[in-house]
């Protein structure tokens, strides 16, 4: 809807002060984006595809095309047909076309969808580069919460079409439940020591580890207690994951 592929049944979207309903072209001029799959004219070269996109943006130059292809690491393949590209390369070409008009904001919808771990990392690095070095605002839509946690500063959670919460990622994570993963030998003794600690609110056994709900400030004291009790401490890892936060938020919403 933000990119005008779907018309709103009511209301309007304002982008950089322009109404998407009344001044669509002006509203979209400062925005680049990819929506889901990066689809291109497979029988044309990447360069030709970007020429077409450039024409739709109001014109571009060969220099700019090669510049954005260089930015996503595809300069050497600029004149190869897109049908010879891997999925990851098409995804990067998708980002290149989004950047072609040098927009202020880039909307990326599931940019790492279908990529292998290496490809995902490349895209994440590219997003960081766009935000930090190119000073672009990147709006990332993703179901991969781990990915959001790694690259985003601010986030909004939408559940069943409703905005549930929004704010800075780190602040929102602070609000969520925190726990510490504890692993040590012998495990039975670890459990009995943990059960005696006042700072421990909840213990969940996960294989050879325990997920302990407690304040992160009490980790050093807990470590000391475990060591003094003769336990060989293997791990004490503070955790506050976006996934847990997301689930806690959306579960609360669905209960309401």
């Amino acid at each position, binding site marked *: 809807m933000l990119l005008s592929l779907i018309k709103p049944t009511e209301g309007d979207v304002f982008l950089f002060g322009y109404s998407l309903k009344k001044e*669509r072209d002006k509203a979209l*001029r400062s925005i680049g984006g990819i929506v889901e799959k990066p689809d291109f004219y497979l029988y044309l070269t990447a360069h030709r595809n970007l*020429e077409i996109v450039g024409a739709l943006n109001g014109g571009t130059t060969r220099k700019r095309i090669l510049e954005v292809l260089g930015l996503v690491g595809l300069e050497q393949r600029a004149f190869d047909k897109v049908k010879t590209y891997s999925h990851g390369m098409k995804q990067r070409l998708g980002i290149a076309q989004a950047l072609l008009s040098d927009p202020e904001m880039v909307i990326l919808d599931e940019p790492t969808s279908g990529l292998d771990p290496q490809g995902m990392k490349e895209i994440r690095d590219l997003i960081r580069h766009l935000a930090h070095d190119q000073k672009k605002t990147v709006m990332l839509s993703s179901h991969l919460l781990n990915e959001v946690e790694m690259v985003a500063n601010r986030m909004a959670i939408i559940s069943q079409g409703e905005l549930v919460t929004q704010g800075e990622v780190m602040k929102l994570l602070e609000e969520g439940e925190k726990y510490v993963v504890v692993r040590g030998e012998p495990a039975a003794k670890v459990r009995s020591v943990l059960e005696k600690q006042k700072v421990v609110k909840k213990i969940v056994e996960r294989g050879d580890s325990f997920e302990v709900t407690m304040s992160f400030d009490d980790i050093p004291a807990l470590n000391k207690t475990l060591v003094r009790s003769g336990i060989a401490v293997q791990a004490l890892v503070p955790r506050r994951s976006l996934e847990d936060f997301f689930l806690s938020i959306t579960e609360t919403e669905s209960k309401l």
Partner: protein
Amino acid sequence: MGRLVYYELIKTFLKKRTYIGFLLVAVVVPLIEVAMKLEGGRFLQVTTRSLQQDFFFMGNLFNGWFVAYTMMNSLWVHIPLLISFVAGDQLAGEATAGTYRLILIKPVSRTRIFLSKYYTTIVYTVIFVVFLGALSVGLALLLLGAGDLIILARGILILPGHDVAWRFIVGYVLAAWAMLTIASMAFFFSSFVENAIGPIISTMGVNMIFLMVTVIPVEMFEEIRPYLYTSYMNVWQKIFEDPIPWQSVGTSAAILGGYSLAFVLAAWIIFRRKDILS
């Protein structure tokens, strides 16, 4: 706008399917014309057998003009099919390839994108009909030479050789106009489906049914015939009448144009309102 049309032309003319029609015409037209040359006029003799009892034909009536005129009958079914291959793919092809999501998020109105695609359809249709005309007339003249043109429709009409060339030029211009109605219909079907096969089959289906209603001499069809575009597609044939019924040519051309406009307007309304969901 020129830039958008240029890139639409690039997209269309760098696609292999665009050349299927050209390839088929380039194979079939020489095949038929060479076969007609080898048959040595037997085709004309068979067609005029009943007339030969009352008339005596002199001179070379089985010539390039006659063969080229006969080839124009492909404009009823075969050429429409080949035109719908490309016209039906103009919008639906983007949906199939998923490239709507690439082009419709750009700061250019859907109307301009739509128009650039329709202009491209016009260019393709005109080029294709010109190719058909140039090949069928040129090759026929090369193989069988020129002469007077015998027209066997509602009687016999023989047009003198010096009065034929311009009729072919005008005839093919009107044929292109008629084919534009077919292209517009395929373009219309293309606007609301996600697959190019649908518009091709729909266009051919409608064309076949309308043609049957137009040519089958059944009384019940008479009332609906004036409303079918196929009743006016013979506009190119009228150029080969003597005298040429210019008023009827004008009316037919205007009605065909009206059909094209209606198809394009309907397609435009659908395209502007379309939600891109996949």
